[in-house]
């Protein structure tokens, strides 16, 4: 509900939704709560919380290292849900958990879905769970009212777009490149026709991520997409500042403000 509501609000404001990714527990779950508050204050519209996994096959070096730091600080899925509860004491920002299937599967799909909803999670995106395998998870997320968010990629055929159309909720996450997560100086803006094709079959907002890190990229993408997802560039700020919490929050705030400004279509 929070996701749908957020997109509705943003349409009225003529703003592209700014989705910011951080890995939960990097460098600690306690700081994650503060970071989320800072992101929201600076203009982030949706929070993507990465659930760390030992084998992040679709991630580039930056998020791999964030996952390793989070696991070293003792982060578990139980801890991530506790963190969401903590965030929910002061915030109604939509929260999506972003991760790999095994930690969810291992937790128990029904148990996870119930507890995630109760903690205040709005949606789940599982990188390595394509629609063909999603049913055993979706029966629980649907019943409980969590959005299960699916990926599409530049390699996706019309056939696959239709398949995702049958299952997707919340929004559709279009991966901008054939590749892993990470910043790229040269973005491919030729995605516009693909976005148009997706819209023919899927009546949900379309977000674009992987490789997006700079305000001018955000601005260009905003012309044809409903949301932009920025991850590695944010995680890098957290990595660079290590334990200097004040500096981490300050720099994140400045960076996200610039991204958020670039999201207003009229400016």
């Amino acid at each position: 509900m929070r996701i749908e509501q957020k997109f509705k609000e943003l349409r009225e404001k003529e703003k592209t939704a700014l989705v910011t990714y951080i890995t939960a527990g990097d460098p600690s779950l306690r700081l994650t709560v503060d970071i989320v508050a800072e992101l929201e204050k600076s203009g982030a519209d949706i929070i993507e919380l990465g659930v760390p996994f030992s084998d992040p096959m679709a991630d580039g070096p930056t998020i791999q290292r964030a996952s390793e730091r989070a696991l070293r600080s003792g982060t578990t899925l139980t801890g991530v849900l506790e963190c969401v509860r903590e965030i929910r004491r002061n915030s109604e920002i939509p929260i999506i958990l972003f991760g790999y299937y095994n930690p969810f599967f291992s937790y128990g799909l029904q148990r996870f879905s119930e507890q995630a909803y109760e903690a205040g999670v709005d949606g789940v995106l599982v990188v390595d769970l394509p629609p063909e395998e999603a049913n055993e998870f979706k029966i629980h997320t649907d019943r409980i009212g969590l959005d299960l968010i699916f990926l599409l990629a530049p390699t996706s055929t019309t056939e696959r777009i239709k398949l995702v159309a049958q299952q997707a909720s919340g929004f559709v996450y279009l991966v901008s490149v054939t590749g892993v997560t990470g910043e790229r100086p040269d973005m491919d803006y030729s995605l516009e026709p693909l976005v148009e094709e997706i819209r023919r079959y899927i009546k949900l907002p379309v977000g674009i991520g992987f490789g997006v890190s700079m305000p001018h990229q955000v601005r260009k993408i905003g012309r044809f997409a409903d949301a932009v997802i920025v991850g590695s560039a944010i995680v890098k700020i957290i990595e660079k500042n290590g334990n200097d919490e004040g500096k981490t929050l300050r720099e994140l705030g400045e960076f996200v403000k610039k991204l958020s400004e670039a999201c207003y279509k009229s400016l």
Partner: protein
Amino acid sequence: MKLKYPDSLGHFGIYGGRYVSETLMPALIELERAYQEAKEDPTFKEELGYYLKEYVGRPTPLYFAERMTRELGGARIYLKREDLAHTGAHKINNTIGQALLALRMGKRRIIAETGAGQHGVATATVAALLNLECEIFMGLEDTKRQALNVARMKLLGARVREVSSGTQTLKDAMNEAMRDWITNVRTTFYIIGSVAGPHPYPAMVRDFQSVIGKEAREQILSREGRLPDLLVACVGGGSNAMGLFHPFIEDKDVGMVGIEAAGEGLETGKHAASISAGRPGVLHGSKTYILQDDYGQVRSTHSIAPGLDYPGVGPEHSFLKDIGRVSYTSVTDREALEGFKFLSRTEGIIPALESAHAIAYVIKIAPQMPKDSVIVVCLSGRGDKDMNLVSEFI
């Protein structure tokens, strides 16, 4: 018992399937179609048969290990000599098949992961043979343990990419190969080396490796006039085991045992026995038994044999374990070393440390079996690559 697996989405019961990023899904579907077509195409069969015979040197012998049999005093022991295949292990049965498929699909760049380096060498070899560009991903830890194979791959013209993330072994090499594939999926063919990974790999690699069991079946029938009582093979990802077992699956009187790596002992946690000590999960594109902690994080593994040092196992093995068709057990590093020495001294055959796990089990079980019973054990590779590793134990 008629087993028709996997289903059209690659499921072996609840196992297998395709758990990968959307970016790779179209490539897997394309691969599945290309493989189906190739399987039906007599030209492909002929070409594969030609290379297996003339280049790999098949059929490999089924050798009666007479001294070993006498010393153990029980079952008659036959060794399926995959160590005599070109490059010294069974891995080439699969790489030649997949490389021919890559050519058919017009992909001129191939990548592969490797643990012990045997699959890497077998991939680099066929890349040289067929003039394909080749990159091999190998954990930093393994490049040190298996320096000889790194040199072989480089000599064969492959680029060896050292993987320094995670545990620096096979699983991380596979992560890195997957990342490369996600990035270069349009031009690149990923040759997975075991019956693991997303559909269609487990079934396709099994089919290519089934030449082991098909030959062994004919050979034992002509030598003994009957089927064996027991098949034994080591299981890391499980490709040599699947290759030997599969053509016998419907012969219900043929027992089958897969031998996992117990490392320093299952109780120490330092092992790689995914089926014996793991539980179902999802890793590297398929649902299968994996070694993981309480929160679903994949555990680091240990085995003296780099080719077994992997926290997962092919999904068909998980299925065969659950339905009780194959039983799985494990032997320790120490027992494997005993097997290594035993076979060297009794038969003049130095086995790979991986295969030595199967030998170690035979040493335990053969004496308990009647003298007219027959064991076929897959000697999946030769041990030259392990000489540095074992020299301190001899």
